[in-house]
């Protein structure tokens, strides 16, 4: 248990550093789509909610799990949709392909 906890902390620490290094390189041009994309990715919390609702251990847990799935799914669907819509609009004045 305790070694597992340490493993998780290592993963968290490394992911934070990767996050900082990757995000630092994102052009300010794309900060709005960046935020909507990370929002959609963050909705991966849906996996916890799916297990919570699907295990059906108590009615209370199932109800909360179902609402949680709906909330996270709306972020996944809406987040990816709007990010792609925004990115489609960014065009260069230099024609790249015919």
């Amino acid at each position, binding site marked *: 248990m305790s070694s597992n906890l340490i493993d998780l902390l290592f993963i*968290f620490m490394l*992911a*934070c550093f*990767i*996050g*900082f290094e*990757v*995000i*630092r*390189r994102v*052009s*300010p041009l794309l*900060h*709005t*789509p*960046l*935020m*909507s*994309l*990370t*929002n*959609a*990715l*963050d*909705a*991966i*919390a*849906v*996996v916890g*909610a*799916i*297990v*919570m609702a*699907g*295990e059906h251990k108590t009615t209370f*847990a*199932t109800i909360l799990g*179902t*609402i*949680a*799935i*709906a*909330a*996270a799914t*709306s*972020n996944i*669907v*809406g*987040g*990816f*949709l*709007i990010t*792609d*819509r*925004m*990115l489609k609009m*960014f*065009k*260069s004045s*230099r024609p790249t392909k015919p």
Partner: protein
Amino acid sequence: MNELVSSQYVIEAIYLIASALFILSLKWMSSPTTARHGVWAGELGMLLAVAGTLLHHGIVDYTWVIVGLVLGTGIGIPLGFVQMTAVPQRTALSHAFGALCVTLVGTAEYYLQTPNVPRFTMAVLSAEVILGGLTFTGSLMAAGKLQEILPQRPITYKGQNVVNLGILGLAVGLAVYLVLHPGATHLFPLMVGIAVLFGVLLIIPIGGADMPTVISLLNSYAGLSAAAMGFVLNNKLLIIAGALDGSSGLILSVIMSKAMNRSFTNVLFGGFGQDQTIAGKQEAKPVRTATAEEAAAILSAANKVVIVPGYGMAVAQAQHKVRELYDSLTKRGVDVRFAIHPVAGRMPGHMNVLLAEADIPYDRLMDMEDINSDFPQTDVALVIGANDVTNPAARNDTASPIYGMPILDVDKARTVMVIKRGMSPGFAGIDNPLYYLDHTLMLFGDAKGFVGNIVRELTGGGH
């Protein structure tokens, strides 16, 4: 038994791939040319992760899972098609949804495990629901202010900071008690309730101009609460996604607060609106004005024009008229670029999205650092709906409340034109000396209408 173990391995392997895809997704966001690949990588990772989770052996009943997925899709689709001007409030709303999910799962998990919750689990569980709870209501408040359902002006009262910190301290105190006595089930809802209340109180004193920082900060909290949930559920994919989101939000908040020369604590506990009195001592100083015809003549005679858009342009929905202006000037051989201040608009990068929507090529949109050295060689700087980010007082008036804030040096251009409704001061209530300079022309009118008039003069100049 063997089957159970192997399905667990399959799920872990899928999560591993999904984690890699998430990192790639953010990596590809670094440039507009690869950014859409980033979305696809994210979508693929998400699809794999959700499909993999459905294999989980503990799931006995799919009914409610499907109900939740269908319901969420139904809410998500309209949220994916909001207008670009409404993106800040949509983003705040989705922070609220993300935090709601995390808080609900955390709450359910607590009641499943109580009273035998290991100390570490209880500690991260408390972090999860406190961060989740305050992000939920805080983001709803932010969305309400951005949608103008709630008053945008900061609401402040005496002792506000003491009250807020006291309430947060109470929630943390309850969390510590629960770590020591996880069986105290009656205290858990109290802790969540206090976090939810704190979220409301935290956003009440924050004004519209501070929204870019606040949205970024809430983004960071939403990520951290998801990472905490990963610790509770022993889910590495969640920890990674939460850490990525948390660091992304943190970086954006640092950029935003630097662009306003303010610290986090100052944004959250300072309250710009408290200095409103300054606006009162304003005296009527002379300004030079110009008509659309004169402005068009000056613009068409220029070689280099820099347009400085601000939130006022978005409010007036003037971006499409601005694009027409860009087109007609470019056709005449004028070099037109756009100077974007990091905090222009209501969220990070908001102006870029609005201008991209109006089909202005992104290589014409310049960051503050890249464009500032070019202003002395610029013939005309045209300010549309921006105010405080062009205020030279930030550079040279130590008494100004925005002193030290990095600004766009528009006053260094040969001619400055400012489209403005009237002489009222900007959101922060600070007078702008730019308007009284000898080489500044004030173009009074609605941004959309005035830009439209200039375009008409430029194109229809023949008749």
